[in-house]
């Protein structure tokens, strides 16, 4: 099972790295917001896998908080972009 957790975590980390490249490249602010959203999702997934691997339930509230934060952050940022572009 340890091998399985290792493989899963490696895949999620690889996905997070690819997302990070998109986050750094942009080219528009919207792409960065989207990449951040996906990145937080991958952090949630990795936390869940790590929790399962160590059979440790202390990180469960972290999952809930991250899910909430990702939503509020992305929506707020997208709204700000929309307002800023509308000003021009």
């Amino acid at each position, binding site marked *: *099972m340890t091998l*399985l*957790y290792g*493989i*899963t975590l490696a*895949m*999620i980390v*690889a*996905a*997070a*790295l*690819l*997302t990070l*490249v*998109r986050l750094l490249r942009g080219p*528009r602010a*919207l*792409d960065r*917001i*989207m*990449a951040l*959203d*996906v990145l937080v*999702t*991958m952090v*949630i*997934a990795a936390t*869940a*896998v790590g*929790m*399962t691997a160590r*059979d440790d*339930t202390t990180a*469960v509230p972290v*999952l*809930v908080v991250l*899910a*909430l934060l*990702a*939503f509020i952050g*992305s*929506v707020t940022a*997208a*709204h700000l*972009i*929309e307002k800023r*572009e*509308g000003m021009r």
Partner: protein
Amino acid sequence: MTVVLDVITAVLFLGGASFCLLGALGLLRFPDTMSRLHAAAKAQTLGLLLILVGAAVQMSPNLAPVLLLVALFQLLTAPITSQIIGRTAYRTHGLERHLLLRDELADRLEHEGSPVHRRTDHSDRRERDDEDTEDTEDAEDAEDAEDAEDAEDAER
């Protein structure tokens, strides 16, 4: 029993991680904001969902409701975020128009007389651009005719 649970978890974890990886790959490779949105949604919903279910299978049963809550919340919020990002991208030229086969919103906006921001600087889209300019020229001709009539009315 444990073996069965382990196998279920293994399948769910590997499936979820594959979806995350494929979604990230699409996010990196796809050409414009709209298609990246499509790839990102795969990782955000099904990828995370499979991994959370896999974790719920493996962990103690009283933890399952919380993980289900996270999954449910993610399922509810991912479309909202995508919709807002998509709308903003549409309004701020975030999509490559020459990749579109059909743009029903633009047709509708044109029909209702709202200004449509069409980009005409894509050389690949010459044909459709020509059509578009013809359409707008027709519309302008009609407007000009109306204006002329209005002017005549005013002169009388």
